[in-house]
């Protein structure tokens, strides 16, 4: 620690602190323009000049100068004020004073500092820049005339996002921030650059001219897309969510978001939102009142209950709040006497609810997000982890680039993560994950690399026997990897002092289920790499509340029908009533034809949703539900973080929250009084779900809490399914596109601007062999159907493997994929 004096205040700070950090710790504000706490020190703007007595009053930048013992710093002398005024005058020389039409006004560091330092006239004169403004881009408007050359956009895109879209181009007076060949911006559109731009040079186009910054009501919430659980701030005016606002003090991610969180909010106020309940009359869905709709639903449910509850089932999305999921489960368990409930098609949560449950004795990740940067080696299963959970991808980028954490990737394709320095990617044949992970475990045993604790864990002998079949030499050919490569990877993992495994889950990843989770668990238990900092497994649940749905047991726990059995039940008539809350099985569950047939067959289908989805269109009753912005509650995200969302706007149209709908149904079917509010349900969760014990909604505050986890380890041998290879065919693997999450992002303007439709991605060799070029429409044919998709050609896919994202309703990939890890297809023009 170092002691110094700043403006007569004594401060003690760590020795790697800068003067700026020290001043901040002492509560003294030093103005900055180019500095950002997330980025490496830059020292370009000279706004943060201070005087240090030991340097004879010389002015030095506070943001780059490290503290030294006994330093005496002055942050605001007359000389410094003069110098800062000069900096501002020089910037204003070129900067257009178009604040009246600039969206940054009110949130602009240059404007605020000009005001603070009373720079009301300029001693100098110069022509303004005449750069062309990029009005074309649908999401980010770039006006380089307003740019003050702080470099933050280029640095964040490089250091954290690792996309590197911008650079300083040209020299001297012509220098400006631009892209390659000064062309259009064609990037990930995470908006990080817009967030950190201190002026209005980069602005959010969808928000342009929507509202003045100071007129926005700012409401803290949590992103409702993926399981990362990024905190965000909604900018609200006149009952509408108009933008997301960057707050660098929110969350582990310092306010950074991905394109879905940043630009995907428009679904909230989409004009496609359902306005009223609908009831099917004479075969057509017609507007109805809530009274009529709820009376009908309650009556049908009462009938189902009286018939014994066997013939009623429920599918719910893991996007609902914990409180809503709790009510959903209660409706079935206590209200209807049925255990036929599930979410995420069953397989997309099995890694947690079956895999982790049997291996670790818990349904949660035995690791937290903070373990990413605390580790020595990250083993990522599929480069897709970046696409499914982009902001966790930023954490991986940071860990690998700044902390020099080793990165190992096993994947059926290459991807962005594979480009990181020190990344070693093992591209294996699709669907071979379990065999490969088993082989790693076998090497660890064969080479005696296991931890001393391993032999004491239940099931060790059985595992050892089972693994004997998985010697690298045995699986190398099927996995498409060298036996030596497998051995090296096993050694690297075993020998790292701390290692964390990252496993994305989701509807697009049918192979990431129980067996893979168990094979991975065995690996961590064998090497003693679980239950310690920087170790364990991070299961990346697909949806914002996937972890909550697992915690609350929203799946059959007493022998009821799971998602797949529910579909079968609908088809064979044993399930007659089905409630679907927020799920869209027609598009996202395997085998679209079968799902459609099942839903057409069921006698009474109720759908609660924001939109008239492909599934809702088949319903007998449709109930308009609220988005995350219209309600309060909690989500539990990756790494067991339970966080609050807050109501930002009144319900859109006549929509009611799933909480309100379910609370009413529970009361009417159980005959008990409805819960008073969300807090009351949260209290009951805290009282009944052990991990949530002792928590209260009020105490969660803005930061939330990390739930405790205890593990009861057990080795469970995981058998690798045999993937039948069809020669002459291509292996289709499904998954997530970076710009989307589930099927909801289709209603967000942002993601749809960037990625409007499904596609099939091929490697260059396959594309050449098929004479397919980027943008061609191709026919993809499998045993269960065929589909027309646009082709994308790139370097990600190895020969013989093609990829398609699953989010899209039209040409949905489940029309050709029926839930196998690999679907064999042929492609023609």
């Amino acid at each position, binding site marked *: 620690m170092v002691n110094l004096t700043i403006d007569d205040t004594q401060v003690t700070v760590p020795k790697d602190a800068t003067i700026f950090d020290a001043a901040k710790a002492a509560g003294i504000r030093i103005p900055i323009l180019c500095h950002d706490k997330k980025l490496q020190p830059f020292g370009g703007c000279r706004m943060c000049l201070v005087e240090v007595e030991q340097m004879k009053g010389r002015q030095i930048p506070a943001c780059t100068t490290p503290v030294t013992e006994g330093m005496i710093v002055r942050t605001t002398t007359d000389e410094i004020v003069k110098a800062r005024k000069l900096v501002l005058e020089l910037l204003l020389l070129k900067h257009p004073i178009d604040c009246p039409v600039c969206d940054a006004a009110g949130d602009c560091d240059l404007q605020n500092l000009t005001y603070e330092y009373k720079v009301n006239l300029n001693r100098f004169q110069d022509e303004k820049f005449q750069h062309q403004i990029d009005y074309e881009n649908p999401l980010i408007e770039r006006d380089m005339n307003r740019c003050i050359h702080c470099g933050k956009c280029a640095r964040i895109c490089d250091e954290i996002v690792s996309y*590197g879209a911008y*650079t300083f*181009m040209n020299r001297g007076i012509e220098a400006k921030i631009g892209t390659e060949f000064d062309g259009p911006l064609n990037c990930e559109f995470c908006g990080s650059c817009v967030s950190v731009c201190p002026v209005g040079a980069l602005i959010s186009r969808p928000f342009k001219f929507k509202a003045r910054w100071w007129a926005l009501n700012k409401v803290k919430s949590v992103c409702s897309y993926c399981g990362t659980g990024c905190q965000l701030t909604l900018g609200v005016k006149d009952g509408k969510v108009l933008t997301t606002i960057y707050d660098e003090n929110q969350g582990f991610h310092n306010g950074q978001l991905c394109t879905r969180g940043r630009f995907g909010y428009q679904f909230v106020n989409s004009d496609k939102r359902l306005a009223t309940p609908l009831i099917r009359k004479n075969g057509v869905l017609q507007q109805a009142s809530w009274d009529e709709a709820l009376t009908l639903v309650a009556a049908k449910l009462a009938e189902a209950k009286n018939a014994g509850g066997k013939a009623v089932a429920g599918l719910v999305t893991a996007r609902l709040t914990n409180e809503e999921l709790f009510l959903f489960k209660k409706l079935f368990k206590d209200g209807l006497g049925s255990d036929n409930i599930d979410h995420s098609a069953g397989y997309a949560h099995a890694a947690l609810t079956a895999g982790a449950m049997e291996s670790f004795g818990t349904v949660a990740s035995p690791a937290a997000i903070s373990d990413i940067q605390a580790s020595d080696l990250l083993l990522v299963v599929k480069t897709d982890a970046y696409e499914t959970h982009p902001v966790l991808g930023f954490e991986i980028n940071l860990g690998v680039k700044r902390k020099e954490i080793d990165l190992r990737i096993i994947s059926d394709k290459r991807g962005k993560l594979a480009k990181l*320095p020190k990344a070693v990617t093992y591209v294996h044949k699709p669907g071979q994950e379990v065999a490969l992970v088993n082989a790693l475990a076998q090497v660890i045993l064969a080479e005696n690399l296991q931890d001393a604790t391993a032999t004491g864990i239940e099931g060790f002998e059985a595992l050892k026997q089972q693994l004997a079949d998985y010697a690298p030499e045995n699986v190398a050919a099927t996995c498409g990897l060298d036996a030596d490569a497998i051995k090296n990877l096993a050694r690297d993992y075993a020998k790292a002092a701390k290692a964390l495994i990252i496993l994305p889950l989701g509807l697009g990843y049918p192979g990431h289920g129980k067996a893979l989770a168990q094979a991975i668990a065995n690996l961590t238990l064998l090497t003693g790499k679980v239950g310690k900092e920087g170790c364990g497994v991070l299961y990346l649940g697909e949806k914002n509340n996937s972890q909550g749905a697992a915690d609350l047991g929203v799946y059959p726990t007493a022998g009821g029908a799971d998602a797949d059995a529910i579909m079968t039940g609908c088809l064979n008539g044993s399930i007659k009533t089905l409630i679907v809350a927020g799920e869209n099985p027609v598009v996202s569950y395997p085998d679209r034809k079968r799902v459609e047939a099942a839903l057409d067959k069921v006698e009474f289908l109720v759908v609660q949703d924001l939109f008239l989805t492909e599934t809702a269109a088949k319903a007998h009753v449709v109930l308009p539900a609220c988005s995350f912005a219209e309600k309060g509650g909690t989500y539990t995200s990756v790494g067991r973080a339970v966080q609050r969302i807050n109501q930002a706007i009144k319900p859109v149209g006549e929509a009611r929250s799933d909480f309100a709908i379910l609370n009413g149904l529970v009361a009417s079917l159980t005959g008990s009084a409805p819960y008073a509010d969300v807090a009351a349900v949260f209290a009951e969760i805290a009282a009944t779900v052990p991990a949530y014990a002792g928590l209260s909604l009020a105490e969660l505050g803005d930061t939330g809490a990390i739930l405790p986890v205890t593990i009861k380890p057990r080795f469970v041998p995981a058998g690798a399914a045999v993937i039948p290879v069809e020669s002459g065919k291509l292996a289709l693997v499904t998954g997530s596109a970076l710009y989307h999450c589930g099927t909801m992002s289709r209603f967000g303007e942002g993601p749809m601007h960037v990625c409007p439709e499904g596609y099939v991605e091929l490697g260059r060799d396959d594309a050449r062999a098929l004479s397919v070029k980027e943008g061609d429409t191709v026919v993809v044919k499998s045993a269960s159907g065929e589909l027309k998709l646009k082709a994308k050609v790139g370097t990600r896919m190895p020969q013989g493997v093609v990829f398609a994202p699953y989010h899209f309703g039209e040409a949905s990939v489940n029309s050709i994929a029926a839930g196998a890890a690999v679907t064999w297809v042929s492609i023609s023009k």
Partner: protein
Amino acid sequence: MSNAPAEEIPTADIDLALANHVIDKYLTLPGNLMPVLQGIQEEYGYVPKPTIDLVAERLNIYPSQIYGVLTFYAQFHLKPRGKFIIRVCVGTACHVQGAPRIVETFFDKLGIGHAETTPDLRFTFEKVACLGACGMAPLAMVNDSTYGSMTVQKVGEIIADYSQRPMKK
């Protein structure tokens, strides 16, 4: 940064074999970006866009950063250059001796401006700062040949002369 194997990016008319060869040569050299770009310029006479994407992919550097480097250093050219590079000095001595008229005359006769190239790729014209031979002001150069005491008439002669020379190497 991990270096990727040679990868072919299909383009209409740029033969990437030359660029791949240059990259192969410097692949393991630390700080190889400058020599690679210089080598590519040597081969093609300028740095074609497809070669930037190739370098980006093989050296694992952002294309934007390469573009930043290329536009920072005056030595790099992003467009094809003429076979004959005409440079007219506009330094102080040459300016006083009438360089502006020489420049104007070249502009007129060639139909191109500063740092531009004729469509037939024969001439590129550039204004340059003092070439260090002020005694010969006003001064012009065509590739490595120097022409002192330039006059409007000499401009015509130079253009006529170089218009007849063969385009092949």
